[in-house]
């Protein structure tokens, strides 16, 4: 039910469009009218997955789809209709889970759509030759990290929304937290890559085999905000 509700919500498609625009805005489009090298479309896609434009759009698109759904349920009294059909624990579990996945789903779909768009626009201008699986592999793992960071942002939105019972906080605080971490890293803690969301995406420092450290950091943050969100929602649902 939650998934259908999210996909049917007004904000889902604008969020998806924003995410696609974020990826495409980072593409270094070829300007010359000549035959392109083989694999240009996925090479450009791979580069776009860590572009500055995407870094800017990431927290925005992640929270839009479902970040304030809990706040809306409470404000519209819809919560009473839901709680009369499922107990509070089940509601909180489902809500937080879908809230968390919403940000990741937006970026997963945006990644797939932008890949297809680049394929359609560039593939037929490419010359024949061998594909480089390494680039595709790298792009795949970048997309995985993008999905995880998107999930972290939307989990923050769910937690902040429940804590402050405000859509503004649900949308605004993840964005502020994300940039606060970037600013802290860039200005004061340059040696601490673990606090930099851009570094989680780009993996320029040493994060261990296959960047495992970055995945663990993001997963730990997701779990932290899911737990905080569940606690805040549970508190809010005591009296409805």
């Amino acid at each position: 039910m939650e998934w259908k509700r999210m996909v049917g919500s007004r904000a889902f498609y604008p969020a998806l469009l924003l995410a696609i625009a974020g990826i495409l805005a980072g593409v270094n489009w070829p300007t010359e009218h000549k035959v392109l090298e083989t694999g240009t479309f996925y090479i450009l896609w791979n580069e776009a997955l860590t572009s500055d434009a995407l870094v800017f759009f990431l927290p925005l698109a992640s929270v839009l789809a479902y970040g304030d759904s809990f706040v809306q349920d409470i404000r519209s009294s819809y919560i009473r209709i839901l709680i009369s059909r499922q107990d509070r624990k089940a509601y909180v579990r489902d809500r937080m889970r879908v809230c968390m996945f919403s940000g990741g789903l937006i970026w997963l779909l945006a990644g797939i759509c932008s890949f297809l768009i680049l394929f359609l626009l560039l593939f037929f201008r490419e010359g024949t030759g061998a594909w480089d699986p390494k680039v595709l592999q790298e792009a795949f793992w970048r997309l995985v990290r993008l999905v995880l960071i998107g999930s972290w942002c939307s989990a923050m939105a769910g937690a902040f929304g429940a804590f402050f019972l405000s859509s503004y906080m649900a949308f605004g605080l993840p964005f502020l937290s994300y940039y606060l971490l970037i600013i802290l890293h860039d200005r004061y803690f340059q040696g601490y890559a673990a606090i930099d969301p851009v570094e989680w995406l780009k993996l320029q420092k040493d994060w261990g085999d296959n960047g495992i450290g970055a995945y663990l950091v993001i997963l730990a943050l997701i779990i932290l905000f899911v737990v905080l969100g569940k606690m805040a929602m549970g508190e809010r649902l005591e009296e409805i």
Partner: protein
Amino acid sequence: MRNQSLEMKTCMGKPMIEIEEVTKKFGQDTVLYPVSMTMLAGQVYGIVGNNGSGKTVLMKCICGFLPATSGTVRAGGKVVGKEVDFPEDMGVIIETPGFLPQMSGRKNLELLAQLRHVIGPKEVTRVLQRVGLDPEARKPVGKYSLGMRQRLGIAQAIMEDPEILILDEPFNGLDKHGVADIRNLLLEMKEQGKTILLASHNGEDIDLLCDHVFEMDAGILTEIR
């Protein structure tokens, strides 16, 4: 059919909801003084009272939406808030119900039906027709009038055919025809042996529908009929 009516008769008189010394305080303010009542199967109970007298708070305590400060509510033998989060087999409409504004009434009910998996699209169609809404209408709930929203609220409360109905001001926002439709619907449900708790400002509705009438005044519940 015979078995069904026999079953209904044997259920009649069985306590469906038992409220024992329930009180509710918000900070220092007491909004419910010790309330005790037993609601029997197949009976319709009405509560009248001014705005802010505590009717809705009592109904919320019965549903488990608000925890009682003291006392217990048992529904179907289980303590609400301890043994069950929300009473099983209960349909509720409290205050103006909220729905997903971008979806049609039908889509809203279908989504809700998926939470319990008790009914399907056919039953959703039937219940929409029963409350006087067009099952095929695509109009989003956000564009519904207050009366249509109220009808949809009643539809969601009765769609899974619950044994107990808690209805807080179900006639709110309904026009003459709407009131008549919903009255007939409630009379039908009464005949089917449902247990109904109804709060209404309108004495006529209460007189017509209820077997027992209570008055709530400043948090004190008194049986008047």
